[in-house]
């Protein structure tokens, strides 16, 4: 039995748990905790350790999806999580420009730990407050070759598209190296 993993990362509340939940065949074993600090009280629960989803590919291959905790004080986990990953998804909450800078910095941090392919998911595109994709690309300063994919983490088809785009990038990377 072989296992491979992909990591879903991004700022607090960007939709990482939701994303993994949308495609995982097991209930995401998230280590959620009620939020205590006032500043972060925009939602009830946050992920404190990591999310963990599974997709069985066939009898001898399993894909695990790991979600990083969103809050900054759990930075120490990222290095461990990123080891040996196939690629990663950076989730961005398109409705909250106050998180863009952090999204960019998470992206750069992960890129430094692991030079594997990645895609950026512009999440919550179903919300009226969402920034348009073209504006997000500039705001996050993503080079044209980096995939920025519109996403609604509550919709499985959208989540599938993001994962497929990441896999296509991984395949393309193999061809060139």
């Amino acid at each position, binding site marked *: 039995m072989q296992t491979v993993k992909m990591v879903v990362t991004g700022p607090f509340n960007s939709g990482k748990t939701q994303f993994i939940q949308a495609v995982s065949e097991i209930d995401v074993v998230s280590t959620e905790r009620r939020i205590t600090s006032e500043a972060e009280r925009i939602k009830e629960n946050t992920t404190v350790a990591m999310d963990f989803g599974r997709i069985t590919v066939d009898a001898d291959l399993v894909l695990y999806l790991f979600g990083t905790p969103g809050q900054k004080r759990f930075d120490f986990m990222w290095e461990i999580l990123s080891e040996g990953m196939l690629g990663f998804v950076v989730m961005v909450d398109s409705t909250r420009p106050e*998180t863009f800078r952090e999204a960019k910095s998470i992206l750069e941090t992960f890129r430094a730990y692991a*030079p594997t392919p990645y895609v950026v998911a512009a999440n919550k595109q179903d919300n009226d407050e969402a920034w348009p994709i073209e504006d997000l690309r500039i705001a996050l*300063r993503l080079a044209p070759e980096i995939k920025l994919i519109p996403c609604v983490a509550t919709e499985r088809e959208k989540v599938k598209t993001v*994962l497929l785009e990441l896999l296509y990038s991984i395949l393309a990377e193999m061809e060139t190296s």
Partner: protein
Amino acid sequence: MALKGNLRDFSTTQLLNLINLAKKTGTLVVEGPNQAAQLAFRNGKLIYGQLAQEDGNLTSILHKAGKLNDEQARVLRERAARSTDKELGLLLINAGYVSQTDILLSIRAHVLDIVYRLITWVEGLFRFEQGVMPSEDRITVPIELENVIIEGARRMREWERLVEELPSLDMALKFTEHPNVNIRDMKLSVEEWRVVSFINPKNSMKAIAKQNNLTDLEIRRIVYGLLQAGLVEVIRPEGAPRPLPFGLSPRKPSPPTPAEKTAARGLVNRLIARIRSL
């Protein structure tokens, strides 16, 4: 879809960069704690600006620029209060008070003054109103944003923001492939030109700073300006480890064998097939 937020999180310089690169047309409205301002853009060029507490009409602009004296301004305010800027402009040119160039340069200086003030605001709600233009009777002057952005970066005082934007000076720089302007047309300082001359995928920012005796703050400020003006990109320096295909540990020095490559590809294709079928 919306384009709004707070300058705390997304600065005026970043907004100008966005408007420039996306070639936007519309009005940026900013409401700060003590003042409010509007800037209008057409196809990514700044064309007009107004501070909420100023009337911003042509008489005041020319007076401020020293093209009209106090007495002339007073008379015009009394007698020409009802004429639009365009009418007034024609009148003044015909009467030989000012030239067309005087008017255009004065408006340009006025708009730049507003945008540079806005760049120093650290807080304020902004929204971009797509397609909204100043009223027809205003005189607009198109101003390229790249030099405004570079000047904005020079005036930037927030060290933390620069560090957040450019966390690692170990990264290198390269020129963007399709910049909006030719770098030769930029009004760069001697120091900025020196940095530009060292831009090369092999040179880390740290190395460029060392060559030019620049502090971390100085190199960050210069690079930030070039970056926001869309002239350069941050890249991993050449010679840094290349991304590894899956299944090969970073410790393994030998290149993948053809068999390993085929196996890795096969695995990814299985994943693709499975996810498609979900």
